Protein backbone atom coordinates (compact mmCIF):
# COMPACT_ATOMS: atom_id res chain seq x y z
CA UNK A 1 0.00 0.00 0.00
CA UNK A 2 3.03 2.25 0.17
CA UNK A 3 2.77 3.24 -3.49
CA UNK A 4 -0.82 4.36 -2.89
CA UNK A 5 0.20 6.94 -0.28
CA UNK A 6 3.12 8.31 -2.25
CA UNK A 7 1.63 7.80 -5.70
CA UNK A 8 2.70 10.96 -7.48
CA UNK A 9 6.33 11.22 -6.28
CA UNK A 10 6.79 7.52 -7.05
CA UNK A 11 5.29 7.99 -10.50
CA UNK A 12 7.69 10.87 -11.10
CA UNK A 13 10.67 8.84 -9.93
CA UNK A 14 9.69 5.90 -12.10
CA UNK A 15 9.24 8.11 -15.13
CA UNK A 16 12.61 9.76 -14.55
CA UNK A 17 14.30 6.39 -14.27
CA UNK A 18 12.67 5.24 -17.50
CA UNK A 19 13.65 8.50 -19.23
CA UNK A 20 17.28 8.21 -18.14
CA UNK A 21 17.52 4.67 -19.39
CA UNK A 22 15.65 5.31 -22.62
CA UNK A 23 17.46 8.46 -23.72
CA UNK A 24 21.04 8.24 -25.05
CA UNK A 25 23.84 9.34 -22.75
CA UNK A 26 24.68 12.36 -24.86
CA UNK A 27 21.46 14.02 -23.69
CA UNK A 28 22.27 16.34 -20.83
CA UNK A 29 20.61 16.21 -17.46
CA UNK A 30 18.69 19.44 -17.79
CA UNK A 31 16.65 18.00 -20.67
CA UNK A 32 15.29 15.30 -18.39
CA UNK A 33 14.64 17.92 -15.74
CA UNK A 34 12.81 20.07 -18.30
CA UNK A 35 10.69 17.18 -19.57
CA UNK A 36 9.77 16.17 -16.03
CA UNK A 37 8.92 19.75 -15.11
CA UNK A 38 6.73 20.19 -18.17
CA UNK A 39 4.93 16.93 -17.39
CA UNK A 40 4.32 17.96 -13.79
CA UNK A 41 2.99 21.28 -15.02
CA UNK A 42 0.68 19.44 -17.40
CA UNK A 43 -0.72 17.45 -14.50
CA UNK A 44 -1.12 20.55 -12.35
CA UNK A 45 -2.79 22.54 -15.13
CA UNK A 46 -5.20 19.74 -15.93
CA UNK A 47 -6.05 19.20 -12.28
CA UNK A 48 -8.19 22.34 -11.94
CA UNK A 49 -9.85 21.73 -15.31
CA UNK A 50 -10.96 18.24 -14.32
CA UNK A 51 -11.79 19.48 -10.85
CA UNK A 52 -13.89 22.32 -12.22
CA UNK A 53 -16.05 19.83 -14.11
CA UNK A 54 -16.65 17.88 -10.92
CA UNK A 55 -17.39 21.11 -9.06
CA UNK A 56 -19.87 22.36 -11.63
CA UNK A 57 -21.68 19.04 -11.48
CA UNK A 58 -21.62 19.07 -7.68
CA UNK A 59 -22.80 22.67 -7.47
CA UNK A 60 -25.73 22.10 -9.79
CA UNK A 61 -26.83 18.88 -8.13
CA UNK A 62 -26.39 20.20 -4.60
CA UNK A 63 -28.08 23.51 -5.37
CA UNK A 64 -30.92 21.56 -6.89
CA UNK A 65 -31.31 19.52 -3.74
CA UNK A 66 -31.24 22.67 -1.62
CA UNK A 67 -34.08 24.00 -3.76
CA UNK A 68 -36.05 20.73 -3.64
CA UNK A 69 -35.34 19.74 -7.20
CA UNK A 70 -33.08 17.15 -8.73
CA UNK A 71 -30.59 19.05 -10.81
CA UNK A 72 -29.10 17.69 -14.03
CA UNK A 73 -29.60 13.93 -14.19
CA UNK A 74 -30.09 13.18 -17.86
CA UNK A 75 -26.67 13.09 -19.49
CA UNK A 76 -24.96 9.89 -18.53
CA UNK A 77 -25.56 8.01 -15.29
CA UNK A 78 -26.86 10.46 -12.65
CA UNK A 79 -26.01 13.25 -15.07
CA UNK A 80 -22.28 13.09 -14.45
CA UNK A 81 -21.57 13.81 -18.11
CA UNK A 82 -23.47 17.10 -17.99
CA UNK A 83 -20.33 19.25 -17.51
CA UNK A 84 -18.71 17.40 -20.43
CA UNK A 85 -21.70 18.22 -22.60
CA UNK A 86 -21.54 21.84 -21.40
CA UNK A 87 -17.85 22.02 -22.24
CA UNK A 88 -18.39 20.62 -25.73
CA UNK A 89 -21.25 23.04 -26.25
CA UNK A 90 -19.28 26.05 -25.12
CA UNK A 91 -16.29 25.13 -27.26
CA UNK A 92 -18.38 24.76 -30.39
CA UNK A 93 -20.26 28.01 -29.89
CA UNK A 94 -19.66 31.00 -32.12
CA UNK A 95 -17.08 33.40 -30.77
CA UNK A 96 -18.61 36.83 -31.25
CA UNK A 97 -16.51 39.97 -31.00
CA UNK A 98 -18.94 42.90 -31.02
CA UNK A 99 -18.38 46.06 -32.96
CA UNK A 100 -16.77 48.86 -31.01
CA UNK A 101 -14.84 46.76 -28.51
CA UNK A 102 -11.18 47.29 -27.84
CA UNK A 103 -10.11 44.15 -29.63
CA UNK A 104 -6.71 43.53 -28.09
CA UNK A 105 -7.81 44.04 -24.50
CA UNK A 106 -11.06 42.20 -25.15
CA UNK A 107 -9.18 39.17 -26.41
CA UNK A 108 -6.46 38.94 -23.80
CA UNK A 109 -8.71 39.55 -20.78
CA UNK A 110 -9.81 35.88 -20.45
CA UNK A 111 -6.18 34.77 -20.63
CA UNK A 112 -5.15 37.27 -17.98
CA UNK A 113 -8.03 36.00 -15.89
CA UNK A 114 -7.21 32.30 -16.15
CA UNK A 115 -3.42 32.25 -15.99
CA UNK A 116 -2.92 33.43 -12.38
CA UNK A 117 -5.53 30.96 -11.20
CA UNK A 118 -3.62 28.11 -12.79
CA UNK A 119 -0.36 29.36 -11.27
CA UNK A 120 -1.99 29.19 -7.87
CA UNK A 121 -2.06 25.38 -7.95
CA UNK A 122 1.71 25.22 -8.21
CA UNK A 123 2.37 25.95 -4.54
CA UNK A 124 -0.47 24.07 -2.87
CA UNK A 125 0.86 20.96 -1.10
CA UNK A 126 -1.08 17.85 -2.09
CA UNK A 127 0.83 15.54 0.20
CA UNK A 128 4.04 15.18 2.15
CA UNK A 129 6.17 14.97 -1.00
CA UNK A 130 3.52 15.87 -3.53
CA UNK A 131 3.87 19.48 -4.58
CA UNK A 132 5.18 21.30 -7.60
CA UNK A 133 7.28 23.94 -5.82
CA UNK A 134 8.18 24.36 -2.18
CA UNK A 135 7.98 28.13 -2.16
CA UNK A 136 8.92 29.76 1.13
CA UNK A 137 6.41 32.59 0.59
CA UNK A 138 3.70 30.32 -0.78
CA UNK A 139 0.65 31.98 0.72
CA UNK A 140 1.90 35.43 -0.20
CA UNK A 141 2.47 34.19 -3.75
CA UNK A 142 -1.11 32.90 -3.96
CA UNK A 143 -2.68 36.10 -2.71
CA UNK A 144 -0.46 38.28 -4.88
CA UNK A 145 -0.95 36.27 -8.05
CA UNK A 146 -4.71 36.00 -7.74
CA UNK A 147 -5.00 39.75 -7.19
CA UNK A 148 -4.17 40.11 -10.89
CA UNK A 149 -7.70 38.89 -11.59
CA UNK A 150 -9.03 42.28 -10.59
CA UNK A 151 -7.20 43.80 -13.54
CA UNK A 152 -8.49 41.08 -15.85
CA UNK A 153 -12.07 41.74 -14.77
CA UNK A 154 -11.62 45.46 -15.29
CA UNK A 155 -10.04 44.86 -18.69
CA UNK A 156 -12.99 42.74 -19.71
CA UNK A 157 -15.53 45.25 -18.46
CA UNK A 158 -13.82 48.30 -19.92
CA UNK A 159 -13.02 46.88 -23.33
CA UNK A 160 -16.52 45.48 -23.86
CA UNK A 161 -17.93 48.94 -24.66
CA UNK A 162 -21.06 48.01 -22.73
CA UNK A 163 -22.44 49.93 -19.79
CA UNK A 164 -23.50 46.83 -17.88
CA UNK A 165 -20.08 45.28 -18.31
CA UNK A 166 -18.56 48.50 -17.04
CA UNK A 167 -20.88 48.55 -14.04
CA UNK A 168 -19.84 45.03 -13.21
CA UNK A 169 -16.18 45.86 -13.63
CA UNK A 170 -16.43 48.94 -11.43
CA UNK A 171 -18.18 46.97 -8.73
CA UNK A 172 -15.57 44.26 -9.09
CA UNK A 173 -12.69 46.64 -8.55
CA UNK A 174 -14.32 48.24 -5.53
CA UNK A 175 -15.28 44.93 -3.99
CA UNK A 176 -12.18 42.88 -4.71
CA UNK A 177 -9.74 45.55 -3.59
CA UNK A 178 -11.70 46.13 -0.39
CA UNK A 179 -11.93 42.50 0.56
CA UNK A 180 -8.29 41.76 -0.08
CA UNK A 181 -7.30 43.67 3.04
CA UNK A 182 -9.27 41.67 5.65
CA UNK A 183 -8.34 38.55 3.69
CA UNK A 184 -4.62 39.26 4.01
CA UNK A 185 -4.84 40.24 7.65
CA UNK A 186 -6.82 37.10 8.44
CA UNK A 187 -4.04 35.10 6.82
CA UNK A 188 -1.56 37.02 9.00
CA UNK A 189 -3.09 35.36 12.07
CA UNK A 190 -2.13 31.95 10.70
CA UNK A 191 1.31 33.19 9.70
CA UNK A 192 1.90 34.63 13.18
CA UNK A 193 1.05 31.32 14.84
CA UNK A 194 3.02 29.10 12.47
CA UNK A 195 5.85 31.57 11.94
CA UNK A 196 6.12 30.75 8.25
CA UNK A 197 4.51 31.52 4.92
CA UNK A 198 5.51 28.17 3.46
CA UNK A 199 2.36 26.17 2.92
CA UNK A 200 4.15 22.86 3.50
CA UNK A 201 5.36 24.04 6.88
CA UNK A 202 1.93 25.45 7.72
CA UNK A 203 0.47 21.99 7.11
CA UNK A 204 3.26 20.36 9.12
CA UNK A 205 2.46 22.71 11.99
CA UNK A 206 -1.13 21.46 12.05
CA UNK A 207 -0.33 17.75 12.25
CA UNK A 208 -1.85 17.48 15.74
CA UNK A 209 -4.63 20.08 15.76
CA UNK A 210 -6.08 22.08 12.85
CA UNK A 211 -5.60 25.82 13.12
CA UNK A 212 -9.32 26.57 12.85
CA UNK A 213 -9.50 25.74 16.56
CA UNK A 214 -6.99 28.46 17.43
CA UNK A 215 -8.24 30.88 14.79
CA UNK A 216 -12.06 30.62 14.74
CA UNK A 217 -12.52 34.32 14.17
CA UNK A 218 -9.81 34.39 11.54
CA UNK A 219 -11.50 31.51 9.75
CA UNK A 220 -14.84 33.33 9.67
CA UNK A 221 -13.22 36.52 8.38
CA UNK A 222 -11.27 34.55 5.78
CA UNK A 223 -14.36 32.69 4.64
CA UNK A 224 -16.48 35.83 4.25
CA UNK A 225 -13.68 37.71 2.52
CA UNK A 226 -12.95 34.85 0.16
CA UNK A 227 -16.64 34.55 -0.70
CA UNK A 228 -16.46 38.17 -1.81
CA UNK A 229 -13.16 37.64 -3.62
CA UNK A 230 -14.56 34.72 -5.55
CA UNK A 231 -17.81 36.54 -6.45
CA UNK A 232 -19.84 33.91 -4.65
CA UNK A 233 -23.33 34.65 -3.48
CA UNK A 234 -24.20 36.71 -1.38
CA UNK A 235 -21.41 38.89 -2.81
CA UNK A 236 -22.03 38.16 -6.50
CA UNK A 237 -22.66 41.81 -7.27
CA UNK A 238 -20.28 42.00 -10.18
CA UNK A 239 -22.24 39.47 -12.16
CA UNK A 240 -25.61 40.08 -10.62
CA UNK A 241 -27.75 38.68 -13.39
CA UNK A 242 -30.96 40.34 -12.23
CA UNK A 243 -29.46 43.83 -12.20
CA UNK A 244 -26.59 43.96 -14.71
CA UNK A 245 -26.95 41.21 -17.26
CA UNK A 246 -23.86 39.17 -16.55
CA UNK A 247 -21.54 41.87 -15.31
CA UNK A 248 -18.11 42.04 -16.84
CA UNK A 249 -18.59 39.05 -19.17
CA UNK A 250 -21.83 40.26 -20.73
CA UNK A 251 -20.31 40.60 -24.19
CA UNK A 252 -18.30 37.40 -24.11
CA UNK A 253 -19.39 34.21 -25.81
CA UNK A 254 -17.95 30.90 -26.76
CA UNK A 255 -14.76 29.69 -25.17
CA UNK A 256 -13.79 33.17 -23.93
CA UNK A 257 -16.84 33.10 -21.72
CA UNK A 258 -15.90 29.53 -20.88
CA UNK A 259 -12.49 30.69 -19.76
CA UNK A 260 -14.08 33.19 -17.40
CA UNK A 261 -16.26 30.48 -15.94
CA UNK A 262 -13.32 28.13 -15.76
CA UNK A 263 -11.22 30.74 -13.98
CA UNK A 264 -14.02 31.43 -11.52
CA UNK A 265 -14.49 27.79 -10.58
CA UNK A 266 -10.77 27.06 -10.61
CA UNK A 267 -10.25 29.97 -8.21
CA UNK A 268 -12.99 28.52 -6.06
CA UNK A 269 -11.23 25.17 -6.06
CA UNK A 270 -7.82 26.70 -5.40
CA UNK A 271 -9.03 28.86 -2.55
CA UNK A 272 -10.95 25.94 -1.08
CA UNK A 273 -7.62 24.13 -1.06
CA UNK A 274 -6.02 27.19 0.56
CA UNK A 275 -8.70 27.23 3.27
CA UNK A 276 -8.12 23.53 3.84
CA UNK A 277 -4.38 24.10 3.99
CA UNK A 278 -4.47 27.10 6.29
CA UNK A 279 -7.22 26.13 8.69
CA UNK A 280 -8.15 22.47 8.27
CA UNK A 281 -4.65 20.92 8.37
CA UNK A 282 -4.37 20.49 4.61
CA UNK A 283 -3.57 17.03 3.36
CA UNK A 284 -3.11 15.61 6.87
CA UNK A 285 -5.63 12.99 7.82
CA UNK A 286 -5.96 9.39 8.90
CA UNK A 287 -6.33 6.49 6.50
CA UNK A 288 -6.43 8.08 3.07
CA UNK A 289 -3.37 9.40 1.25
CA UNK A 290 -2.76 13.13 1.35
CA UNK A 291 -3.95 14.09 -2.11
CA UNK A 292 -7.30 12.36 -1.49
CA UNK A 293 -7.69 13.98 1.92
CA UNK A 294 -7.08 17.40 0.42
CA UNK A 295 -9.80 16.86 -2.15
CA UNK A 296 -12.21 15.55 0.45
CA UNK A 297 -11.68 18.80 2.34
CA UNK A 298 -11.85 20.90 -0.83
CA UNK A 299 -15.23 19.45 -1.75
CA UNK A 300 -16.46 19.79 1.82
CA UNK A 301 -15.60 23.51 1.80
CA UNK A 302 -17.10 23.84 -1.65
CA UNK A 303 -20.29 22.31 -0.26
CA UNK A 304 -20.36 25.07 2.35
CA UNK A 305 -19.97 27.63 -0.45
CA UNK A 306 -22.93 26.09 -2.25
CA UNK A 307 -24.88 26.04 1.01
CA UNK A 308 -24.35 29.77 1.56
CA UNK A 309 -25.28 30.42 -2.05
CA UNK A 310 -28.52 28.52 -1.57
CA UNK A 311 -29.30 30.46 1.61
CA UNK A 312 -28.28 34.08 1.42
CA UNK A 313 -29.72 36.76 -0.89
CA UNK A 314 -27.51 39.26 -2.65
CA UNK A 315 -26.32 42.36 -0.78
CA UNK A 316 -26.44 45.95 -1.92
CA UNK A 317 -23.11 47.47 -2.96
CA UNK A 318 -23.05 49.85 0.03
CA UNK A 319 -23.72 46.93 2.37
CA UNK A 320 -20.89 45.01 0.78
CA UNK A 321 -18.47 47.89 1.22
CA UNK A 322 -19.67 48.60 4.77
CA UNK A 323 -19.18 44.97 5.71
CA UNK A 324 -15.61 45.07 4.45
CA UNK A 325 -14.50 48.39 5.90
CA UNK A 326 -16.55 48.74 9.06
CA UNK A 327 -16.79 45.15 10.22
CA UNK A 328 -14.23 42.78 8.75
CA UNK A 329 -11.27 45.14 8.69
CA UNK A 330 -11.35 46.12 12.43
CA UNK A 331 -12.17 42.54 13.35
CA UNK A 332 -9.21 41.23 11.41
CA UNK A 333 -6.90 43.75 13.05
CA UNK A 334 -8.19 42.75 16.49
CA UNK A 335 -7.78 39.10 15.55
CA UNK A 336 -4.17 39.47 14.50
CA UNK A 337 -3.39 41.56 17.60
CA UNK A 338 -4.91 38.98 19.97
CA UNK A 339 -3.13 36.18 18.12
CA UNK A 340 0.19 38.02 18.38
CA UNK A 341 -0.27 38.51 22.14
CA UNK A 342 -1.07 34.83 22.57
CA UNK A 343 1.96 33.78 20.55
CA UNK A 344 4.24 36.07 22.58
CA UNK A 345 2.84 34.87 25.94
CA UNK A 346 2.98 31.15 25.14
CA UNK A 347 6.22 30.87 23.23
CA UNK A 348 6.35 27.07 23.10
CA UNK A 349 3.06 26.54 21.30
CA UNK A 350 -0.45 27.52 22.25
CA UNK A 351 -2.04 25.46 25.07
CA UNK A 352 -5.16 23.51 24.29
CA UNK A 353 -7.35 25.27 26.82
CA UNK A 354 -7.00 28.34 24.62
CA UNK A 355 -9.41 26.80 22.09
CA UNK A 356 -12.70 27.56 23.94
CA UNK A 357 -11.26 30.88 25.08
CA UNK A 358 -10.55 31.84 21.48
CA UNK A 359 -14.04 30.84 20.40
CA UNK A 360 -15.57 32.96 23.17
CA UNK A 361 -13.32 35.90 22.29
CA UNK A 362 -14.26 35.62 18.63
CA UNK A 363 -18.00 35.48 19.34
CA UNK A 364 -17.70 38.40 21.76
CA UNK A 365 -15.78 40.52 19.26
CA UNK A 366 -18.38 39.82 16.57
CA UNK A 367 -21.17 40.76 18.99
CA UNK A 368 -19.44 44.02 19.90
CA UNK A 369 -18.32 44.95 16.43
CA UNK A 370 -21.67 44.52 14.75
CA UNK A 371 -22.95 47.57 16.62
CA UNK A 372 -20.70 49.65 14.43
CA UNK A 373 -22.25 48.06 11.35
CA UNK A 374 -25.42 50.06 10.97
CA UNK A 375 -26.95 49.47 7.57
CA UNK A 376 -29.93 51.73 8.14
CA UNK A 377 -29.85 55.36 7.13
CA UNK A 378 -26.61 55.24 5.23
CA UNK A 379 -27.70 55.85 1.71
CA UNK A 380 -31.08 57.43 2.36
CA UNK A 381 -31.29 61.08 1.58
CA UNK A 382 -34.22 63.12 2.79
CA UNK A 383 -35.82 64.48 -0.35
CA UNK A 384 -37.60 67.76 0.40
CA UNK A 385 -41.07 68.34 -0.97
CA UNK A 386 -42.88 71.34 -2.37
CA UNK A 387 -40.98 74.51 -3.16
CA UNK A 388 -37.92 73.28 -1.31
CA UNK A 389 -37.76 70.34 -3.73
CA UNK A 390 -37.84 72.68 -6.69
CA UNK A 391 -35.13 74.77 -5.12
CA UNK A 392 -33.08 71.66 -4.46
CA UNK A 393 -33.45 70.55 -8.06
CA UNK A 394 -32.61 73.96 -9.46
CA UNK A 395 -29.67 74.47 -7.17
CA UNK A 396 -26.50 74.84 -9.23
CA UNK A 397 -24.16 71.88 -9.27
CA UNK A 398 -21.30 72.18 -6.84
CA UNK A 399 -23.27 73.74 -4.03
CA UNK A 400 -22.37 77.31 -4.92
CA UNK A 401 -24.54 80.18 -3.77
CA UNK A 402 -26.65 81.99 -6.28
Amino acid at each position, binding site marked *: MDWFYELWPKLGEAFRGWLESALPDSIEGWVIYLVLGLLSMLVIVNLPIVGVMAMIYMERRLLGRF*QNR*LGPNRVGPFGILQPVADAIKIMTKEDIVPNGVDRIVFNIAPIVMLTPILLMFAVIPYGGDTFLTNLNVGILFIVAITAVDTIAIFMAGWSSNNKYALFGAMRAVAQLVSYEIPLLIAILGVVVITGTMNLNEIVAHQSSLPLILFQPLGFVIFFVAISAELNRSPFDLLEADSEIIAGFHTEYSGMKFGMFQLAEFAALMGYSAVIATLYLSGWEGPGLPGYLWLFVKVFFIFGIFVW*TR*ATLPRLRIDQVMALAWKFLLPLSFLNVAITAVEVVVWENGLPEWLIPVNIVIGAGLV*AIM*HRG*LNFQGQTRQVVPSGPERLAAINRPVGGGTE
Partner: protein
Amino acid sequence: MYGLGIAKGMIVTFKHLFRKPFTVQYPEEVVPRGSRFRGYEFTWYEDRCTGCASCAKYCPLGTINIVTHPEGDPKQGMDYAIDIFDIDTGRCMFCGLCVEACPYEAIQAGGPLDDATYDFESLYRDKHKLTEMAQEHLHGHDFTYPNGKQAPQPDEKPLHIGLPVERDRTR
Protein backbone atom coordinates in the same frame (compact mmCIF):
# COMPACT_ATOMS: atom_id res chain seq x y z
CA MET B 1 -26.11 38.42 18.42
CA TYR B 2 -24.84 39.16 14.94
CA GLY B 3 -24.96 36.23 12.59
CA LEU B 4 -27.71 34.26 14.32
CA GLY B 5 -30.14 35.10 11.54
CA ILE B 6 -27.70 33.76 8.98
CA ALA B 7 -27.27 30.59 11.06
CA LYS B 8 -31.04 30.12 11.26
CA GLY B 9 -31.36 30.59 7.52
CA MET B 10 -28.59 28.10 6.90
CA ILE B 11 -30.38 25.54 9.06
CA VAL B 12 -33.61 26.11 7.14
CA THR B 13 -31.93 25.44 3.80
CA PHE B 14 -30.12 22.47 5.27
CA LYS B 15 -33.46 20.90 6.17
CA HIS B 16 -34.50 21.29 2.54
CA LEU B 17 -31.72 18.88 1.58
CA PHE B 18 -33.65 15.99 3.08
CA ARG B 19 -37.02 16.78 1.56
CA LYS B 20 -38.40 14.86 -1.35
CA PRO B 21 -37.70 16.74 -4.59
CA PHE B 22 -40.70 18.11 -6.40
CA THR B 23 -39.26 17.38 -9.80
CA VAL B 24 -41.51 15.40 -12.12
CA GLN B 25 -39.41 13.50 -14.63
CA TYR B 26 -41.68 14.44 -17.49
CA PRO B 27 -41.45 11.83 -20.22
CA GLU B 28 -41.50 9.06 -17.62
CA GLU B 29 -43.85 10.67 -15.11
CA VAL B 30 -46.77 12.95 -15.90
CA VAL B 31 -48.39 15.38 -13.52
CA PRO B 32 -51.98 14.25 -12.87
CA ARG B 33 -54.38 16.75 -14.38
CA GLY B 34 -57.78 17.85 -13.22
CA SER B 35 -60.93 16.63 -14.92
CA ARG B 36 -61.56 20.10 -16.37
CA PHE B 37 -58.13 20.33 -17.94
CA ARG B 38 -58.29 21.67 -21.48
CA GLY B 39 -55.39 21.11 -23.76
CA TYR B 40 -55.64 17.49 -24.75
CA GLU B 41 -55.87 16.68 -28.41
CA PHE B 42 -59.32 15.68 -29.65
CA THR B 43 -60.27 12.13 -30.32
CA TRP B 44 -63.04 11.57 -32.80
CA TYR B 45 -64.98 8.30 -33.00
CA GLU B 46 -66.40 7.73 -36.41
CA ASP B 47 -68.74 5.04 -35.17
CA ARG B 48 -70.44 7.50 -32.83
CA CYS B 49 -70.58 10.42 -35.24
CA THR B 50 -73.86 10.99 -37.05
CA GLY B 51 -72.54 13.79 -39.21
CA CYS B 52 -74.82 16.42 -37.67
CA ALA B 53 -72.02 19.03 -37.87
CA SER B 54 -72.87 20.56 -34.50
CA CYS B 55 -69.20 20.71 -33.66
CA ALA B 56 -68.40 22.59 -36.86
CA LYS B 57 -71.18 25.06 -36.18
CA TYR B 58 -70.06 25.72 -32.61
CA CYS B 59 -66.38 26.04 -33.37
CA PRO B 60 -65.54 29.77 -33.03
CA LEU B 61 -62.47 29.49 -35.23
CA GLY B 62 -63.92 27.20 -37.87
CA THR B 63 -61.22 24.63 -37.48
CA ILE B 64 -63.58 21.72 -38.12
CA ASN B 65 -64.44 21.02 -41.73
CA ILE B 66 -67.20 18.48 -42.34
CA VAL B 67 -68.82 17.35 -45.59
CA THR B 68 -71.61 14.76 -45.58
CA HIS B 69 -74.24 13.32 -47.88
CA PRO B 70 -77.42 11.40 -47.08
CA GLU B 71 -77.05 7.68 -47.52
CA GLY B 72 -78.99 4.51 -46.99
CA ASP B 73 -82.43 3.11 -47.57
CA PRO B 74 -85.11 5.72 -46.85
CA LYS B 75 -87.38 3.02 -45.44
CA GLN B 76 -84.74 1.89 -42.99
CA GLY B 77 -83.88 5.40 -41.90
CA MET B 78 -81.25 7.44 -43.67
CA ASP B 79 -77.85 8.29 -42.24
CA TYR B 80 -75.34 10.93 -43.08
CA ALA B 81 -72.27 9.45 -44.62
CA ILE B 82 -69.17 11.41 -43.66
CA ASP B 83 -67.09 12.32 -46.66
CA ILE B 84 -64.71 14.72 -44.98
CA PHE B 85 -64.05 15.36 -41.32
CA ASP B 86 -60.93 17.48 -40.73
CA ILE B 87 -59.69 19.29 -37.66
CA ASP B 88 -57.03 21.93 -38.21
CA THR B 89 -55.34 21.53 -34.81
CA GLY B 90 -52.86 24.23 -35.67
CA ARG B 91 -55.65 26.80 -35.42
CA CYS B 92 -57.52 25.19 -32.54
CA MET B 93 -57.55 27.14 -29.29
CA PHE B 94 -58.84 24.22 -27.21
CA CYS B 95 -61.96 25.98 -26.00
CA GLY B 96 -63.79 22.65 -25.89
CA LEU B 97 -67.07 24.00 -27.32
CA CYS B 98 -67.21 21.24 -29.92
CA VAL B 99 -67.03 18.64 -27.16
CA GLU B 100 -69.93 20.28 -25.36
CA ALA B 101 -71.90 20.68 -28.57
CA CYS B 102 -71.68 17.07 -29.72
CA PRO B 103 -74.94 15.31 -28.83
CA TYR B 104 -73.48 11.83 -29.30
CA GLU B 105 -70.13 12.32 -27.56
CA ALA B 106 -68.39 11.51 -30.79
CA ILE B 107 -65.69 14.13 -30.34
CA GLN B 108 -63.99 14.09 -26.99
CA ALA B 109 -60.95 15.82 -25.53
CA GLY B 110 -58.50 13.39 -24.07
CA GLY B 111 -56.00 12.46 -26.71
CA PRO B 112 -52.26 12.83 -26.42
CA LEU B 113 -50.84 15.90 -24.73
CA ASP B 114 -47.26 15.71 -25.99
CA ASP B 115 -48.29 16.09 -29.59
CA ALA B 116 -45.44 18.14 -30.97
CA THR B 117 -44.62 17.80 -34.64
CA TYR B 118 -41.88 19.04 -36.89
CA ASP B 119 -44.30 19.83 -39.68
CA PHE B 120 -47.09 22.35 -39.58
CA GLU B 121 -49.03 20.42 -42.20
CA SER B 122 -49.26 17.35 -40.01
CA LEU B 123 -51.38 19.32 -37.56
CA TYR B 124 -54.16 19.26 -40.18
CA ARG B 125 -55.83 15.93 -39.47
CA ASP B 126 -58.32 14.23 -41.71
CA LYS B 127 -60.74 11.56 -40.61
CA HIS B 128 -58.33 8.70 -41.14
CA LYS B 129 -55.70 10.31 -38.97
CA LEU B 130 -58.31 11.20 -36.34
CA THR B 131 -59.65 7.65 -36.33
CA GLU B 132 -56.14 6.32 -36.00
CA MET B 133 -55.51 8.56 -32.99
CA ALA B 134 -58.85 7.61 -31.47
CA GLN B 135 -58.15 3.91 -31.87
CA GLU B 136 -54.71 4.38 -30.38
CA HIS B 137 -56.31 5.99 -27.38
CA LEU B 138 -58.88 3.21 -27.01
CA HIS B 139 -56.28 0.48 -27.25
CA GLY B 140 -54.08 2.25 -24.74
CA HIS B 141 -56.85 2.81 -22.21
CA ASP B 142 -58.62 -0.55 -22.03
CA PHE B 143 -61.41 0.54 -24.39
CA THR B 144 -62.59 3.41 -22.25
CA TYR B 145 -63.52 6.75 -23.77
CA PRO B 146 -61.83 9.87 -22.44
CA ASN B 147 -65.07 10.76 -20.65
CA GLY B 148 -64.91 7.52 -18.69
CA LYS B 149 -67.57 5.52 -20.50
CA GLN B 150 -66.91 2.05 -21.78
CA ALA B 151 -66.35 1.67 -25.49
CA PRO B 152 -67.44 -1.41 -27.41
CA GLN B 153 -64.79 -4.03 -27.77
CA PRO B 154 -63.32 -4.26 -31.27
CA ASP B 155 -65.13 -7.52 -32.02
CA GLU B 156 -68.50 -6.03 -31.09
CA LYS B 157 -70.69 -4.41 -33.69
CA PRO B 158 -70.21 -0.71 -34.24
CA LEU B 159 -72.86 1.47 -32.68
CA HIS B 160 -74.42 2.97 -35.76
CA ILE B 161 -75.16 -0.41 -37.29
CA GLY B 162 -77.23 -1.29 -34.26
CA LEU B 163 -79.52 1.72 -34.54
CA PRO B 164 -83.09 0.92 -33.44
CA VAL B 165 -84.97 -0.63 -36.37
CA GLU B 166 -88.38 0.02 -34.89
CA ARG B 167 -87.76 3.75 -35.10
CA ASP B 168 -89.02 4.49 -38.58
CA ARG B 169 -87.86 7.94 -39.52
CA THR B 170 -89.86 8.08 -42.75
CA ARG B 171 -93.15 8.39 -40.92
